[in-house]
């Protein structure tokens, strides 16, 4: 009996319309780490930072340097602030149209961080509907203190220092593929194609000629 009830509950959970599109982008541990990094930056810079992401009109991810993860940035209490805002729209599998997103930065800094700064760093709204939406969101929000400092706000940089005491067992994994292929794959395909196409074209034409000669001889 209990098993049947659980099965029904599971089925209802899985098939509630929109359930697949609900949820959050960031994992709780990542949210906490992000909020803490922003809190440390706030301490250095005296600027409040936060983020608020809506998925299909509902707040899914939020947090701030003031209140930590899970709560939208406070409306009051910060002299200076910069908040990352995003609207993500997921469409259902059977619907027409594609997932989309828009991003903006709300700030009262005299020279506020801009979306174009994030684009310079390699991020855009489309990243929030990509496979690595979580790391993109972490990076875009995490970049706010960096961008606030590099603009003319009289805000100090967050100090960068190399890590110490790194466990010896930890190291990089999944080494990336060739830089040459990543940079120039199009040219490699183009010129490699030309190299192969030459002989192919020659033998094709030669075959056509022989076929034509055979047909003529038969006639």
């Amino acid at each position, binding site marked *: 009996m209990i098993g049947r009830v659980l099965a029904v509950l599971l089925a209802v959970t899985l098939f509630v319309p929109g359930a697949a599109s609900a949820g959050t982008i960031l994992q709780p541990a990542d949210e906490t780490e992000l909020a803490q990094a922003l809190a440390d930056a706030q301490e250095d810079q005296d600027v409040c930072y936060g983020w608020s992401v809506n998925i299909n009109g509902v707040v899914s991810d939020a947090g701030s340097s003031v209140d930590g993860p899970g709560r939208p940035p406070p409306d009051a209490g910060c002299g200076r602030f910069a908040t990352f805002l995003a609207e993500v729209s997921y469409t259902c599998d059977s619907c027409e149209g594609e997932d989309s997103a828009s991003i903006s930065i709300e700030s009262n800094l005299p020279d506020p961080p801009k979306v174009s700064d994030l684009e310079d760093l390699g991020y855009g709204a489309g990243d929030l509907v990509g496979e690595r939406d979580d790391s993109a969101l972490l990076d875009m929000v995490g970049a*706010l203190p960096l961008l606030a400092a590099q603009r003319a706000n009289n805000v100090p940089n967050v100090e*960068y220092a190399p890590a110490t005491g790194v466990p010896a067992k*930890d190291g990089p994994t999944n080494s990336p593929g060739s830089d040459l292929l990543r940079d120039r794959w199009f040219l490699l395909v183009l010129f490699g194609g030309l190299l192969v196409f030459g002989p192919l074209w020659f033998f094709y034409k030669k075959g056509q000629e022989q076929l034509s000669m055979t047909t003529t001889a038969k006639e």
Partner: protein
Amino acid sequence: MSRHLLVALLLSGAGILGLVFVFTSHKSVRESIADRYDFVGTEAVPDDKDRTLVYASSKPVSATAKEIAGDHKPAERRTTEAGAFLRYKEDIVSVVPDPAGGGRSRVLVDDEDTGYRRNYLFVGGFWGTFSGRGESFRGGGPGAGK
């Protein structure tokens, strides 16, 4: 020589010349950075025998990272409050604010292992293994009693 053979040789010849150009003109990210920015010196990384190559950029972090990524598309990237980090096959490039300020930045070039150790707090768990701290939000900011 038949017309078809001539055309085939021209096509393949263009392909060979193109491939030679692609391979010989491609610079590594290290070479591009050395060409574009002023070399400042080297810097030690804690608990690592390899030293970091340090370059100076007159532009802020976002513009410098854009230049480097424009020359060589990184396989992975991370951006944090402290800087922008680009990962290549054998190198990790860190673009961080110049401590002297002035809207300038420093470009730090490391091999993959040294770069990972240097930036462990920023790329650990993203580009490799991470057995570092898990923590709860402890706050910060003025009066937060951190």
